[in-house]
């Protein structure tokens, strides 16, 4: 186990250092690797580097002053008074194992104006106990901004230059879009490996992602490559022991070279072909889905988008949508992505409808304010706009939202709507060529929004029957 710690006390003369000493002594005894940064009146000593923080399994902050925690976003963080580290340091190493993962700007999940699309997944970065799913989500959370930037540039290119992106500017923007999109697989595989094996995982991971892209092995190939790279590096770190005079070569020469050779060759000659075939098969199957099957898929994806409001389930659905985009050629649209996006717009819009129009008196003043911004967030496809409502009344809100979102997703599929970009909400509706059957698409959105909006208003009315709501 590797731990990084900060100690600090109000006068910065004694406790800061006693706490540091005791943490170091206890760590030695427990066989834990530790580095303690002291923030005393001398200033910061033994400062933690970002690489050390990235490599740490947990963070202990023992301070009676306010310590800036921004550096530790995504880390398990135990925040205690400095006296605890002086008094019972060993116990802290136990407690940090189960400490919550620190999220920068903790309050933003309750703040409708915070419009980061992917906060939850990024917060898992570096968390060793997170398992395979956590590594995947780390990779995905790094990848999605590339897809968003790339997809929107692509759509913009169409907006500027028509469906074939005519003209110098449109061509340039289109090129930007495809470059950003092209980085998608290396970033996914690279950061999945990074999540598993830290920095040394990046090289074989990114190479595997590039390979997957060139072999047409798509999402599955990149993912498999990322995991292979991560665990290969992990195994190498464990098994390869060099004399200490050569150990400096491990991170810059031996690990990158050998892991890249191994992962690359395995990808190329062993798993590449079957994965490429599987990827093609899945793509063909998805494209062949019609009628009831495709509506069912839309219902499921829609429900997934609402059930945890851009949490892991929503992201899985979103990811599925994004993956479906990657096999499109220019000018094509994806019905899956369309269903995913439009159903993700339902929860904030429905809650905005309920809190600012249908049932104003059922919501607190804060919620009505959040409702106003939820209109904008919903139109922008930022499902998190619904979080302030879900936070105070999760069961009713999530249940009502899931119903409407599922219906919207199903309708979108039924209407054979499609979309060429992975994000942008209502604003891409206006870009020519970005959405097919755009009128029906709007209808799907309105129907789901109205259903969810009425449903949540009704559920809240039942709850508050005869009761006054705190304004």
């Amino acid at each position, binding site marked *: 186990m590797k731990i990084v710690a900060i100690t600090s006390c*109000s*006068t*910065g*003369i*004694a*406790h*800061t*250092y*006693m706490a*540091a*000493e*005791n943490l170091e*002594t206890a760590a030695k005894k427990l066989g834990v690797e530790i580095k303690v940064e*002291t923030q*005393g*009146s*001398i*200033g910061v000593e033994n400062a933690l580097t970002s690489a050390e923080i990235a490599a740490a399994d947990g963070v202990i902050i023992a301070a*009676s002053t306010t310590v800036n925690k921004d550096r530790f976003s995504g880390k398990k963080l135990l925040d205690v*008074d400095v*006296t605890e580290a*002086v*008094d019972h340091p060993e116990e802290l190493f136990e407690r940090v194992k189960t400490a919550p993962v620190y999220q920068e700007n903790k309050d933003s999940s309750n703040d409708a104006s915070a419009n980061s699309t992917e906060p939850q997944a990024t917060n898992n970065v570096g968390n060793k106990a997170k398992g395979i799913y956590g590594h995947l989500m780390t990779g995905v959370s790094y990848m999605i901004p590339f897809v968003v930037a790339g997809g929107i540039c692509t759509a913009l290119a169409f907006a500027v230059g028509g469906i074939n992106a005519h003209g110098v500017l449109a061509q340039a923007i289109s090129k930007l879009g495809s470059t950003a999109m092209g980085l998608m697989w290396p970033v996914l595989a690279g950061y999945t490996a990074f999540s598993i094996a830290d920095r040394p995982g990046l090289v074989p991971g990114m190479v595997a992602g590039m390979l997957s892209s060139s072999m047409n092995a798509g999402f599955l190939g990149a993912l498999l490559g990322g995991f292979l790279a991560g665990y290969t590096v992990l195994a190498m770190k464990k098994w390869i022991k060099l004399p200490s005079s050569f150990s400096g070569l491990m991170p810059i020469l031996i690990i990158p070279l050998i892991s890249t050779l191994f992962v690359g060759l395995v990808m190329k000659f062993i798993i590449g072909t079957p994965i490429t075939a599987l990827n093609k098969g899945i793509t063909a199957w998805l494209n062949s889905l019609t009628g009831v099957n495709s509506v069912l898929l839309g219902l499921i994806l829609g429900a997934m988008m609402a059930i945890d409001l851009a949490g892991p389930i929503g992201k899985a659905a979103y990811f599925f949508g994004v993956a479906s985009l990657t096999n499109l050629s220019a000018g094509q649209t994806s019905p899956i992505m369309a269903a995913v996006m439009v159903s993700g717009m339902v929860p904030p819009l429905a809650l905005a409808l309920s809190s600012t129009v249908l049932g104003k008196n059922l919501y607190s003043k804060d919620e009505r304010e959040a409702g106003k911004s939820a209109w904008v967030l919903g139109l922008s496809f930022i499902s998190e706009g619904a979080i302030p409502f879900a936070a105070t009344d999760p069961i009713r809100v999530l249940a009502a939202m899931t119903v409407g979102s599922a219906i919207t997703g199903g309708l979108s599929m039924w209407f054979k709507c499609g979309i060429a970009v992975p994000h942008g909400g209502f604003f891409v509706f206006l870009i020519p060529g970005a959405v097919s059957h755009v009128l029906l698409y709007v209808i799907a959105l309105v129907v789901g929004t109205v259903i969810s909006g009425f449903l949540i208003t009704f559920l809240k009315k039942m709850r508050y029957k005869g009761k006054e709501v705190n304004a």
Partner: protein
Amino acid sequence: MAADFALRKLMPPDLITFDLQATEKVAAIKELAQKIKDAKQINDLDTYLKAVFKREEEYTTGIGNGVAIPHGKTAAVLKSSLAFGRSNKGITYNSMDNKPVYLMFLIAVPENSSNEHLQILSQIARKLMHEENRQAILRAQSPEELYQVFEN
């Protein structure tokens, strides 16, 4: 070994006593503080004591295992100082472990203390965390033996 001499300057023999009379926290702190005052390293004793007790209110500096390190940082301190007192009877101190204090290090730091002094104090604080050092301080018979504990 500049640091070694620095410790001797920070805690000269006249700030060291192996026989603290007071058996209670406030009196013990005052007893040691008077020594720093007598050495003319504090210009206003009351202001300094106020800073120490204010610090004490935040949480006790009785860090357990018979050690206390009360400290005050104020402009009333002329020169960074460290006073040491050993009590043979034990001092009631409301320590973190509720045990009496036998070793007391009273720290006085001016508002703008040099880093060198702070560095020494931080080293002393670290050394006090180790049982063998505390035992050696309990056994020390002279200032010289006390210095050696920290200089090793």
